[in-house]
Structure formats: structure tokens, C-alpha cells
């Protein structure tokens, strides 16, 4: 058979004419960079339950304008190298329409620039401030609080609700622990509080008596904690009890980790401990969540296990999938530009985890007013009671 230039041209035209039909039936492909195994897998497992539930719910109701949602998961194991490889695979081979994740800052720091080069729409919940920069990374959007927002919430509760003016700031010796404690101490001092002592403790230090005695002798009225080490936190709480001191602990969400319950000497040691939490996933004095999430929990019942995870992880996973599908629904397109432009126009988008607002200049979408303090020992189905003082 002789291939003529005209024949080739006609064939190409016919192919291009058929493209829109293919695209309209093509599934909406969402890449999901999840640290499903390894040391930091707990959040991703929770997020994943929300992601899978949302995708199934959308597909069961007919999809988005007839298009199914396809979740393409890659287990990054919390390893930045694996996250980079998975990101490159998603961009160049799998050709996903948007990426959700990674879910920890170490991985996110490694892949954000790669996604920016490919103009890949990206949503993530990582807290490191520098991950969001609409000029350098116009494709990246955050749907959880940043470190600064956490810090603001802790400081606001300590100074305005607990009415404490003298604090001891304690972090661990990891990069995160040191930088978070330094930033927190500086912000407290800027707001007129007295930082009576600041310490970075090795998480494996067996005895916390020296650090707690130093804080007490310096007159600390609250201990501000910036660490993910449950062993260190439990030791500090046990030491506080052994000293007969009832100073409140305020700080990092890890203060509410279930692991601490197993490590403290007695349940009372976990009283007067307030961890960063979220209004949408906190129950009030009557034990009720905000109506929207009360209804979500009922819908999840029997389908998604909330006993061993946090509701905000599940809710955030649902929101991530819905943010992508709503963008496709609203714009009728899956192009990078259309999805990013749609997200830039969102104002108080009602997610389950929070009401997100983005502009072209601000990609920190989570409202700071929704970051609250929870009573750390009150965990129930992945939710917590609001700390005292919220009225």
C-alpha cells in the first residue's frame, strides 16, 4: 500500500476529530502519593480511607459528567526518593490530571519543584511554610494549616484563652523540633509573653526531670511542645505527674496521639494537655460534631473505620478528591490550566475538613480560625473535645 501525503493528512485529521470523544470518556486520573507503609504511614492510611470512599461515592453516582474517577496510588514509604520517582511516573507515563500528596513535608520538599515544572495541579496537606509559594509553585495548593497557622493557634490559645504569660518552649532535636521551637519562642516574645526557658531534648533521653525542673524553677505557667515524639511527650507527662505539678501542656497534634495513652503511667497524667485540632472535627460539650461532619460520620459508618485514625485525615482525603472532580465539573476540562484557574477562584469552598479559599496570590487555603485546641485525652472515633475556654 502506498502512503500518500494527502492520505496521511486525512488520517491525521480523522484522528484529531475523534480526540474530544475519547477525552470526554476518559477517566479523571488522580495521582495519589501516599506513604502507605513505613514510619510515617498513619496519616496516609487515614487519608487513603477518605480518598477511596470519595472516589467510590462519585463513581457510584455516575461519575463527573459521565467520567469515572480513577485513583492511581503509589506507595512512597515516606521516602523522598521514591516520591520523586512516583511523581515523574505520574507526570510522564501515567499522565494524571492532578496529584494529591505527598502527605509529609520531607517528600513534598523533594517533589514540589518537579510538579511545578510540569505545571501539574497539586493539592497537599504538608505544613512546611516554604512549600506554598504562588510565584515559584503556581500549581501547588495547601488544604491543611501551615506551620505558621499551627503556631498562631497555639499562641492565641495560650495567651488569649488560657491567659498565660510565662511559657517554657520545648522541642525535640530533629530539624523540625528545633525550627518549630525557635519560631514559637520568637513569636511568643514578639507578642509580649515571657519565654522563661527554651529547650531541645533528645527524644530518647530517658529522664525528663532536669528539663521539667528547670521549667518549674523558671516560673513557667504553660509548657509549649513542638515534637512528634510520643515517647518524649509521655516521659514529660509522667515527670510532670511525679513532680506533682499541674502545668498545662499546649502544642503539637502529637500530644493527642493514641500511642501516648499506652505510655503514660496513669490516665490522669494526660489531663490538662491541649493539642492542635480542628473545629470541623471537634465535638462540643454535648458530644456533637458540627452538623456537616456529624452527617458525614453517619454516612461513613460501617464503610470507613474511624476507630484507629483521625477524622480530619479521612475528611481531608475526601476533600482532595472532590476538589479535583469539582474543578473538572465546573470547567468541563481536565487541562492543567483549567484546574489551577478554578482552584484560584475558590472562595469558602465547603469541604468536610474546612472551608477553603484560594486566590492567585494565596494558596494557603485552610482558614486559621478553624485551627483550635483539643483536649488531648478525649479521642473518640478520630475526633476530640474542644479544649476548655471555647465557650
Amino acid at each position, binding site marked *: 500500500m502506498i502512503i500518500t501525503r494527502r492520505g496521511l493528512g486525512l488520517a491525521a485529521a480523522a484522528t484529531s476529530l475523534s480526540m474530544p470523544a475519547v477525552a470526554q470518556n476518559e477517566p479523571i486520573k488522580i495521582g495519589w502519593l501516599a506513604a502507605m507503609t513505613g514510619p510515617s504511614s498513619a496519616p496516609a492510611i487515614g487519608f487513603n480511607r477518605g480518598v477511596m470512599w470519595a472516589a467510590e461515592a462519585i463513581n457510584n453516582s455516575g461519575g463527573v459528567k459521565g467520567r469515572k474517577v480513577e485513583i492511581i496510588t503509589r506507595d512512597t514509604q515516606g521516602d523522598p526518593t521514591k516520591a520523586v520517582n512516583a511523581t515523574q511516573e505520574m507526570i510522564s507515563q501515567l499522565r494524571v490530571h492532578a496529584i494529591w500528596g505527598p502527605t509529609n513535608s520531607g517528600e513534598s520538599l523533594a517533589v514540589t519543584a518537579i510538579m511545578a515544572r510540569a505545571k501539574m495541579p497539586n493539592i497537599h496537606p504538608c505544613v512546611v511554610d516554604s512549600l506554598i509559594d504562588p510565584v515559584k509553585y503556581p500549581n501547588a495548593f495547601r488544604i491543611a494549616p501551615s506551620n505558621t497557622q499551627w503556631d498562631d493557634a497555639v499562641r492565641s490559645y495560650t495567651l488569649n484563652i488560657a491567659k498565660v504569660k510565662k511559657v517554657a518552649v520545648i522541642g525535640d532535636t530533629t530539624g523540625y523540633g528545633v525550627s518549630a521551637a525557635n519560631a514559637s519562642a520568637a513569636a511568643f516574645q514578639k507578642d509580649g509573653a515571657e519565654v522563661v526557658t527554651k529547650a531541645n531534648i533528645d527524644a530518647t533521653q530517658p*529522664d525528663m526531670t*532536669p*528539663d521539667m525542673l528547670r521549667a518549674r524553677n523558671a516560673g513557667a505557667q504553660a509548657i509549649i511542645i513542638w515534637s512528634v515524639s510520643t515517647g518524649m511527650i509521655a516521659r514529660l507527662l509522667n515527670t510532670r505527674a511525679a513532680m506533682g505539678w499541674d502545668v498545662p501542656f499546649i502544642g503539637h497534634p502529637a500530644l493527642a496521639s493514641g500511642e501516648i495513652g499506652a505510655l503514660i503511667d496513669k490516665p490522669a497524667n494526660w489531663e490538662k494537655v491541649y493539642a492542635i485540632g480542628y473545629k470541623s472535627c471537634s465535638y462540643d460539650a454535648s458530644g456533637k460534631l458540627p452538623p456537616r461532619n456529624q452527617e458525614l460520620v453517619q454516612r461513613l459508618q460501617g464503610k470507613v473505620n474511624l476507630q484507629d485514625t483521625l477524622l480530619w485525615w479521612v475528611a481531608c482525603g475526601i476533600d482532595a478528591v472532590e476538589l479535583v472532580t469539582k474543578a473538572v465539573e465546573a470547567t468541563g476540562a481536565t487541562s492543567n490550566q483549567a484546574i489551577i484557574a478554578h482552584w484560584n477562584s475558590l472562595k469558602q469552598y465547603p469541604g468536610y475538613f474546612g472551608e477553603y479559599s484560594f486566590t492567585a496570590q494565596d494558596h494557603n487555603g485552610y482558614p486559621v480560625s478553624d485551627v483550635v485546641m483539643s483536649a488531648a485525652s478525649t479521642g473518640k472515633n478520630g475526633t476530640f473535645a474542644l479544649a476548655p475556654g471555647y465557650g
Partner: protein
Amino acid sequence: MLASILASGLAVGAVYALIGITYNTMFSTSRVMSFTAGQLGMLGGVFGSLFVLRLGLPVPLGLLATLSCCALLGVVTEVVAVRPVLKSLDQHLYVLSTLAVALLIQHATALEWSTEPQPFPRLVGIGAGIWDEKYWLPVVACAATILGLEYLYRYTLVGRAFVAIAEDNFAARALGLPERNLRMASYALAGAVGALAGFAGGQLLLAFFANGPLLNFYGFIPVALGGLGNNRGAVIGGLLLGLFQQAANFMVGGIFSSVAVFTLFIIVLLARPQGMFGAPAARRV
């Protein structure tokens, strides 16, 4: 404050001393510094928590099972990481091989046990405050170990054979002593001593996979301070290290206490390279 420094300083120091003895026991029959010593201590806590807390075994049975498991691991270390490199001791390949086994143990523990610290049970339920069992148990375990080893080395045939191998490997073999079996036995003994360190200090250190590197580092210091192969030196070095570290924690705080410890360590080694209680190596000319 002084009572607290003494209680926790001696407790942590006793754990370091036991890890130092673990190093020495393995070194004496093989001339190898095995970097699995700290991991054996870590496993003492993990197995203790597993057997007593999770599986509900009585404490004596849990202790026996923990010591047995770690003794077995000691033998495996000897077979896998030490025996193949004994012929080229001067190339120090054992550093790589024992570190590899140590990493293997740590990662396997992280995967199979947990990456978060797990609780360790109360063992005898005696004492409170600075007299809590978590403070005196490691000291008692250390004292029992050093007495037991003294008895073994001085009054038993096997112990004397250990000493003979340690003194002169070639002469001992020429006398017909089963050098390989004795070396395996010493690694099993070291495994049990390391496990005892982790078990007795479990309430202080918790059952945590990351304790291995910590014990490897801090357990090595008593060996260097006390003189290589000198168990009594390791005990004194370990206890002094624990007390100094805890005092530094009080005086200068967490991060800086490590700096203080290692500064003192370097100063001591500069002044006495053979350790505080070690004799300079004599060479017949």
C-alpha cells in the same frame, strides 16, 4: 536535684556499663568490636515488652525468653558477621559486617515491632520516687552481672577457657581448647548480657527500635574509658558517664549535655589513650 541526678544517673550508667560489658565479652574471644551490642540492648526492651506485656508471660519466664532470644542472636552474629572476617582482622572488615547486622536488626524491629516507643511493663512493683524500680533495677542487674562474670572467669573451667582464649588465642588452641565453640559461647553470653541491659532498663528506655544506636554510642564510651576488655573499668566508666550526663542535663540542658559528654570523653582519651583503667600494650622486643 542531687537525689534525682544520682538515681537516674546511676540507672542509665548501669545500662551503659552492661552494654560496655557486652562489647568486652564479644571482643575478648574474637578481637572484634561488634556494633550489634546496642541493638542487643534495644532488643532486650522489645522482647521484654513482647513476652511480658503482649503475650502475658510471667516476668521470670519473659526474662528467660528474652535472654535466650538475644543469646541466639549473638550466636547468629558470630556466624554471619564475625567468623567470615576473622582471617583479615587487620583490615577491620568487621566494622562493616557487624554494622550491617546491626542495621538489619534495627530495620527488622522497626518493620515488625513498631516505629513508635511501646510501653514496658513494671517488673516487681517495688519503690516510688527516686527509689522506683526503674532506677534501681538496672543497678542491681549490673551488679549481678559483674559478680556472675567474676565467678565465671575465676572459678569455672569454661570461664578460665574464655580467659585463656582472650589472653592468647594461639596458645589456647595449641592446648586443645575448642576456640570456635568458646567464641560462639561468648557471643551467646554477650547476647544475654545485652538483653539484660535492655530488660532491666526497659522502664526507662521503653521498647523502642531507635534505642539501638543510642546504646551503641553511649555503651562504647565506658569501654574506651575503662580500657578495652576490662569489665570492671567498663562498669566504673559507665556509672561515671551516667552521672556526668545526668548532671550535665541539669546544668546545661539536653542538646548541650551530649556535647559535654563527648568533650570530656575526648579529653580523657587524649590524657590516657589506653583508658582510665587500661594498661599500655606491652610489646616484647
